[in-house]
């Protein structure tokens, strides 16, 4: 049976349409890639609630800050590598320092953007967003969770970063699946090891858990969609229950979700931890799945990490 796959950005576009239908103060801004981010759907349906800012990411965020100051709720989007990278100063000093109600979407994140190569593969955005005071950071696992995350971002008053990839990814949640900002979701119960994942790595973790079950290794899988604020209770509870942790994310190991988990555990309940992520390197061109395999972002890497971490218990 083939797995149903949908790009996460579809969830972003859907959420924008829902938000604007309910609240005309929501406005989408993009930097020349609206077709890719799906904010084009807003332009098509609600042209007065859309601004194409052109290839100008700093201006995108600066103008959004002004709009927020003027009582609107701007959702800015472009490729994550430029969104978080080129506009970091504006996000830091104008949006976060002032705690302005600007929503930021980083699209085409991760190495799975593929052939565009290292220049377009955002592998650092979670780190440089989560370090900012007042910022909320969410990395959803599929289109439906991206939709819910975007809606949840609109419900808080303040800066919000949601990141998603380009490729169609397996559907792992349904409309009825609960989603609460800041609350990790247990996807599979287990007792030998807790695999904490987000983004496209959640599906890989669930598949790895099935493989490991055949070897009588009981894996708990946790969807840590909200990287900041981190769900301390859920992370600590998983560590206590299983005694060891593997984190899996499509991002640099340094500074990403795994680092956030390690910060949390070091302060509350230290246990052995293995990290699945990009190991301090840039990406390169290739097909998405080739790259995921080449950079150890797949089920077999998680299986190996689980065995390694259990041996360290």
């Amino acid at each position, binding site marked *: 049976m083939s797995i149903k796959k949908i790009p996460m950005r579809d969830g972003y576009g859907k959420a924008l349409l829902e938000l604007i239908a309910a609240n005309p103060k929501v406005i989408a801004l993009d930097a020349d890639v609206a077709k890719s981010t799906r904010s084009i759907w807003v332009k098509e349906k609600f042209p007065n609630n859309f601004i194409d800012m052109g290839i100008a990411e700093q*201006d995108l965020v600066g103008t959004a*800050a*002004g709009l927020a100051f003027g009582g609107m709720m701007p959702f800015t989007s472009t490729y994550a590598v430029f969104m978080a990278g080129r506009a970091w100063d*504006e996000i830091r000093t*104008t949006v976060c320092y002032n705690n302005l109600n600007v929503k930021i979407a980083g699209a085409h994140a991760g190495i799975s953007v593929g052939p565009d190569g290292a220049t377009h593969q955002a592998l650092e955005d979670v780190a440089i967003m989560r370090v900012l005071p007042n910022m909320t950071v969410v990395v959803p696992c599929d289109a439906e969770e991206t939709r819910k995350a975007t809606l949840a971002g609109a419900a808080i008053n303040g800066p919000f970063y949601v990141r998603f990839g380009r490729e169609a990814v397996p559907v792992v949640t349904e409309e009825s699946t609960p989603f609460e900002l800041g609350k990790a979701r247990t996807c599979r119960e287990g007792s030998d090891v807790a695999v904490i994942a987000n983004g496209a790595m959640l599906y890989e973790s669930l598949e790895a858990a099935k493989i490991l079950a055949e070897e009588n290794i009981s894996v708990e899988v946790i969807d840590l969609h909200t990287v900041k604020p981190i769900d301390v209770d859920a992370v600590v509870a998983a560590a206590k229950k299983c005694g060891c942790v593997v984190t899996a994310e499509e991002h640099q190991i340094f500074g990403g979700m795994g680092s956030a988990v390690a910060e949390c555990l070091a302060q509350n309940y230290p246990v052995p931890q293995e990290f699945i992520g990009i190991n301090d390197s840039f990406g390169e061109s290739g097909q998405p799945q080739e790259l995921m395999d080449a950079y150890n972002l797949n089920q077999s890497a998680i299986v190996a990490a689980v065995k390694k971490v259990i041996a360290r218990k």
Partner: protein
Amino acid sequence: METAALQKIARRVRFEAVRMIYEGKEGHPGPALSCADIVATLYFDVMNINPDEPDWEDRDRFILSKGHGCPIWYATLNERGYLKPKVEHFHLRELGSIFQGHPSMHSGVPGIDMTTGSLGNGIAIGAGMAYAAKVHKKDYYTYVICGDGEMQEGVTWEGVNMAKGRGLDNLVVFVDNNGWQSYKTIEFTIGQNNMADRFRAFGWHTQEINGHDVEQIKAAVLIAKKTPGSPHAIICRTIKGRGLSYMENNNKWHKGVPTEEQWAITQTELGGE
């Protein structure tokens, strides 16, 4: 307001700006003094504001994009009645002071519409405010004062481009064109100081005036308001450190603190009525 009265206020806020730097032992007096006449004219003549209600939603907005010039803004807000009670000692840049080294909209100074300090951002943010006014069918204006040095930041021109493309004729940008930046002159640094040419090339309604002549500042805003369809640039020829003999056109005063002797000169040249 009458010209003589405006000039008196500009002199007063210059003195106060230098006093807060002298007392706080830190700050940028030269950049503050070069835009003193523009800030004073905006707050005491041009802008539709209410110091008793700093967040009044129909007020004109103001951004000091060259945030390091903030002592003149603090002094002007104080003279205009935003601070209650009126501030005697600013404690500029001191721990716990509301008067931060660069203006913050959350440090507790009433009337600060936008945080600045990271150069180049004022026009983009101002364009957002102006765009919001259009969306909400409000007739307030957004005024931005930029330094000429910060025009080297790329985001400035992203904002200039967008504001013209969207026809934001409710956005008025003053360029405090004193010809200097932190290290040297604009010409030395990048080989050209052609502010008006640049704004014209981007299609802005552009005027060039003497930025120390309050009559010219008032007149330029009136002309801007009568010229619809395009954002407005008012390029102001200014003198860095204007108003103090020891400071004028001397870039040593980009950042610096007067000695006791210089403070005595300041009192003579700017103090009193």
